[in-house]
């Protein structure tokens, strides 16, 4: 095997470690990159180098950005006084895609989990408590997953904060475009409990 081939094989091996890619799809992706060297491979390599050098966690909220304080925390257009708590950065991005929330975020970096031995001290919960005091927050919105771990974390945070600030959580119920016949009984029960006047 030539040196060049060995390097390409190394790239394929690295690509195969990415989520959603196996050895076969990594090989196809690398072949595509080589064929589109100037249009895709070189810009991609440059973008990865820049992100590799600059990407970091926001010291305030835990979002990922290219500076110590992320764009959302720095923005003056964002509403102060409302913090939306999410499990990880992917959830923050999902909330931002919706565009409905104009306040600030706090990324926990996971959820409490007895199975994985994740306790409150392993998450960014102490920092959240500090922010509630320091930023004169009036409402904390818990946008955590509707799973046992997600809701256990939500109740834990609510327990910590509800004596000093309004704590709310996202509603649970029928998704837009959803059909009742296909919903599980837990979702239907939650939707019924959260019913509202039409």
């Amino acid at each position: 095997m030539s040196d060049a081939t060995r390097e390409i094989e190394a790239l394929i091996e690295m690509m195969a470690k990415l989520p959603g890619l196996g050895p076969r799809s990594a090989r196809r992706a690398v072949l595509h990159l080589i064929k589109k060297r100037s249009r895709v491979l070189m810009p991609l390599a440059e973008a990865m180098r820049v992100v590799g050098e600059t990407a970091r966690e926001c010291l305030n909220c835990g979002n990922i950005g290219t500076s110590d304080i992320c764009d959302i925390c720095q923005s003056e257009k964002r509403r102060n006084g409302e913090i939306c708590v999410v499990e990880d950065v992917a959830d923050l991005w999902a909330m931002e895609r919706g565009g409905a929330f104009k306040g600030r975020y706090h990324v926990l970096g996971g959820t409490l989990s007895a199975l994985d031995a994740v306790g409150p001290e392993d998450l960014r919960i102490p920092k959240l408590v500090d922010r509630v005091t320091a930023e004169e927050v009036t409402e904390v919105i818990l946008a955590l997953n509707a799973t046992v771990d997600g809701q256990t974390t939500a109740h834990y945070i609510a327990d910590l904060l509800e004596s000093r600030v309004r704590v709310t959580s996202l509603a649970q119920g029928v998704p837009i475009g959803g059909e009742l016949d296909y919903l599980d009984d837990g979702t239907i029960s939650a939707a019924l409990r959260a019913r509202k006047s039409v």
Partner: protein
Amino acid sequence: MDWRDEGIVLGIRPHGETSVILDVLTASHGRHAGVVRGGVSRKIAPLLQPGADLDLTWRARLEEHLGAFTVEPLKSRAVLLSDRRALAGLNAVTGLLRFALPEREVHEGLHERTAALLDMMGDSPFWPIAYVRWEVALLEALGFGLDLSACAVTGSTEGLVYVSPRSGRAVSEAGAGEWAERLLPLSPALLGQGTGSGDEIVAGLAVTGHFLSASLQPAMGDRPLPEARARLVDLLGRA
């Protein structure tokens, strides 16, 4: 090898990118694990939440293999997610079962008892009494049963007010004598009685907690008891 059974989900662990290892308490096969292929998919992941009842089919080439499950939902316990105390109860139940039960060891009646307790958590405000009784039953299933039927000293079945921290047997006021200070108070919750007040529940959990720590924990290599149980005790004590 294959079998079909009902099981309560105790937890899941990721297995590769798309599968999970499911940990369940079954009716006839004890605590059992197996791979669920596609277990992280949007269709299957919601079924595998702790506490959910599943219809399980387990298949493996050999008995000692991990094997794979195919799952069908029987009952979701999502209703517990919105109730702080009930969710803490669910976490304590699944945490203790994962902590204490060896795999593939059948414990008669424990599945039914656990399912009944989880059903009660969604329905009845008196579930904390049932939870205390469930911990007593768990200790019994693991060989550390309490004997609360008669006084260990006098044999009397009346006036039982203490539990011996060494033998787990009930002791009456008369039988306790000068040893009373060293004995644990016998909460009516341990007998499935009383008003279900926070004090009674916490006193009952102090007794079961003592035996979980003193008897079960050393048998489990001195691993700490699940944090979820401590959180439940804290919440119930505030009620």
